[in-house]
């Protein structure tokens, strides 16, 4: 025979378990993980899905890096091979990036080739100017 205290305790435990289960089902975000990216449409040399330069081992970048963040974080940055490696190490240390294994080398080659720094000195000239007629009454 179960004492009533024990029965109430078990009931309470069951309720807590149901509450926790419901919370998990409604709240859990997908855990990012590497995927095997497939080629998609290529427009003007860029991967249409992501804007990555569709050369070399871009599918490895698509499958690993873009599991966690936007491609724009790659395409707006420029760095040497060492610089990209440093970023990968930082993401592994702080952001939960996995060990890239034997894909690390090809990924670094791709990044260092297609997203390499440009020498711009202390102040580059103004670029991409779209000229327009200024209405003096504006």
């Amino acid at each position, binding site marked *: 025979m179960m004492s009533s205290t024990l029965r109430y305790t078990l009931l309470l435990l069951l309720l807590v378990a149901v509450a926790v289960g419901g919370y998990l089902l409604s709240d859990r975000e997908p855990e990012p993980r590497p995927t095997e990216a497939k080629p998609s449409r290529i427009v003007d040399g860029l991967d249409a899905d992501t804007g990555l330069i569709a050369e070399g081992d871009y599918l490895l970048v698509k499958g690993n890096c873009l599991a966690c963040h*936007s491609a724009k974080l790659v395409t707006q940055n420029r760095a040497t091979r060492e610089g990209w490696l440093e970023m990968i190490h930082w993401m592994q240390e702080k952001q*939960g990036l996995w060990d890239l294994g034997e894909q690390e080398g090809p990924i670094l080659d791709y990044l260092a080739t297609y997203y390499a720094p440009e020498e711009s000195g202390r102040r580059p000239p103004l670029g991409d*100017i779209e000229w327009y007629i200024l209405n003096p009454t504006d």
Partner: protein
Amino acid sequence: MFYLARPQNPCLLSSLNRRKFLALAGLPVVYAASLPAGVQLLGLEPADPLPGKHPGLTVLNDRPVNAETPAHLLNDKVTPAELMFVRNNGAVPRGLPELPTSLPGDWTLRIAGEAVPEPVTFTLEELQRRFTAHTYQLTLECGGNGRKEFSPPARGNQWSTGAVGCPKWTGVRLKDVLEAAGYDRKRAVYVGYYGKDTHLSGDPDKVVISRGVPIAKALEDESLIAWALNGKPLPLLNGYPLRLVFGGYPASCSGKWLSEIVVRDQVHDGEKMGGQSYRVPCEPVAPGTTVEDEDMCIILEMPVKSLITSPRTGAVVERGTPLSIAGHAWCGSSAVERMEYSIDFGSSWSRCQLAAPANRFAWQHFSARVNFPKPGYYEVWARATDTAGRSQPMVLPGWNPRGYLNNACHRIAVKVV
């Protein structure tokens, strides 16, 4: 449940995160990836990555959302909500309205930390009822605004000039709330924040960002716990429903989706307070130098800076017609005393008219009428000087590993025909 799962104050319950709690409780850890088909998860990214924002904003990154405002769209004296830049480190908290029209009165703000005798919790409604509301026009600028120009390049979002804005913020003074919580004046060193944004990895135990300011800055009149921008609820992407606003400091100090403030007895050591984040070499370094973490110092006040907001770069004007230029100048420590422009790459400078700020830490408006001596290509450069005599450099200022504090002169291209 929520508080057990994600301790707000890492000083407490630091060893008991959600997964460990579940393991201790003997319950299975369920991953979303293993959910049955048809079960919808809450908090998927909204279809519009920039709800409530102007279509002219430049999106630098969509996960997390980061967008800047082109200079010519910042011409308003008081920055409209839709033109306030967006800088997020993590995902926007789920369950909040994309276009808020009212405030959740039951939103809670906890005041805790070593220099608070007992943690105190206020609801937003209590903050509004118990304390006097103040409105200030305060400039917020991302510490990395201008990163794009650094050479060798610095990693991160490649902000050009538009991670800045100066709307009117309404809220209560942080000092009034800290006093009500009975904070210990002798022990208080730093104030840190926690917010409800979530880590991109999906890990609920990871804090996205938890920065703050020295206690002296926290106690200034203009340091606000704000719920309104230009008289309306904060835009979702700018921290709805509650945030901190510290004008003149890197905007990352002004925590969004604010849920907890800690008064620390040491320099706050939250996420992105240490390492290379929001820190610059304590001693100047040559471009490209690797700097150890212990040789990096926290950025406090932002340097003097200005932006030409009218006309948009690329204006073609007729010879003989003076060109009206206008813009804003600001400075994190004091005020802007002098504003000048040059059309000959700094060989000579002419004064602009410069208005007084609406209040401390508000940007100041400048204007001038520019005459060009002959047809051709010109650049109009603008240079602000603060009350301490510090001017904006024409070249890039000191290189630093993460590309902060670029206050080099802004310039626009003009063709005279």
